[in-house]
């Protein structure tokens, strides 16, 4: 296992696992902050894929790699994920402030 060179596919697998963990975390956790963590996981999976695709050494035809674009996209993704987390947390805290509960299931006001 350690002798085989690493390819994009390996990264994709790790990314997939991260993605799935993020989704499950989001769906099962009742704590708002838990859901935010799930979101973080999903975003990091995405960034991982970007980076994986940008490295020419990981694939057969080198030119098809994203090269610097992958990096730049990953950068933008990281920055925006941070900003998004800030806003999400602000909303969560506001909700907690007004309803004194962090439990997502209790936030059912907008139901049909």
């Amino acid at each position: 296992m350690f002798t085989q060179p690493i390819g994009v596919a390996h990264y994709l697998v790790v990314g997939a696992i991260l993605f799935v963990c993020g989704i499950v975390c989001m769906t099962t956790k009742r704590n708002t902050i838990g859901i935010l963590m799930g979101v973080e996981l999903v975003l990091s999976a995405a960034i991982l894929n970007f980076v994986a695709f940008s490295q020419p050494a990981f694939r057969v035809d080198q030119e098809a790699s994203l090269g610097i674009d992958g990096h730049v996209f990953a950068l933008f993704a990281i920055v925006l994920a941070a900003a998004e987390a800030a806003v999400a947390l602000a909303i969560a805290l506001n909700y907690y402030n007004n309803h004194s509960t962090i439990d997502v299931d209790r936030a059912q006001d907008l139901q049909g």
Partner: protein
Amino acid sequence: MTMQADDPRLIEFDVRTDEMLVNMGPQHPSTHGVLRLVLRTDGEIVSETTPHIGYLHRCAEKIGENLTARQFIPYTDRMDYLAGMNMNLGWSLAVEKLLQMEIPEKGRHLRVMIVELNRIASHLLGMGAYGLDLGTFSPFLYAFREREKILDLFEAVCGARLTYSYLTIGGATHDLPPGWLQQCEAFLDQFEPNIEEYHTLLTTNQIFVKRTAGIGLLPAEMAISYGCTGPVLRGSGVDCDLRRDGEPIYTRMYEGYDFEIICERDGHYPDDYDYPPVPKEAQLGDCWHRFYVRMLEVVQSVSLIRQAMDKYSQTAGDYGIPVRFNHKLPAGEAYLETESSRGWMGFHIVSDGTAVPLRARARSGCFSNLSVIGEIGHGCLIADIPAIVGSLDLLMGEIDR
């Protein structure tokens, strides 16, 4: 003192965190002795402080009812163990008042000298401990360096460094050893220039000023209404010092001495001392002013000692021979307050004619000073609590007795 809305230090709490009851417990490093403060905090902001005392209670007063007047002297030492001499003086003067006994003039000058020395030692430790509360370690060590010299002097006089029980009813247990005055003189000479150092170290240190100016603001009328005394009262601008306005039996000691009460009268302190200017953030009655009053009192005490030494050496006569241990006390009662370093120390003796007093009660200055903490100890940050407590210069021994 409620915090006004526009007070910069009012930290707006945003997320509604739950109130937290925190014990700045008896064994907390910054509470001088064993004071327990229950803080109701919300995040960093303290909304309510309630002091709990009684951890150092040794029921000295009850024991006082089974001892004769002079036997009670050592107990007074252990009340305010940093200013033992003042306690002895207080008790002995109260008894002398009951006995209507007059001690010779030389004894009085001796008493002044000793008491003022003890005041300096006490203030020095107060200053050092306050520095420790605010996080700097070095001033504490400088303070102890000076204090050690004074304790050496006291050791020379009465053999003890902390619990002296030297001044007794009728004068002092024994006279000053020869050459003591010269040692004292030498101490004073090398001590005075050092005071400048302490100012630079703390009083005018920008971070110190930031941590103390405007914190724990104690308005004059509140200080009076809570019965604060001593530097705490004078720090709030109330011009009151028993050495000058006390009972005649006590103030007679200080007759002939020219000294001025250290207090900010209409905007400035008595200008016969070269002292650093008051920073603009400091408001009258805040921690900085209390600290500043103590520092100036040290300088005042130095001048008093010098005068006392001259007077002592000039007057003839004995130093006040103490009465016998089982000296009978006349029936009746007497109450006298003296200006100790931390405030007024009052002693009340009720006797039914026998040598053993019926009731020996001590009224402690620190006790009322502590009672203010509830009032000025809220609406500030946790880090301010030690600063406020330190500025009040509390001593649990005197409070719990």
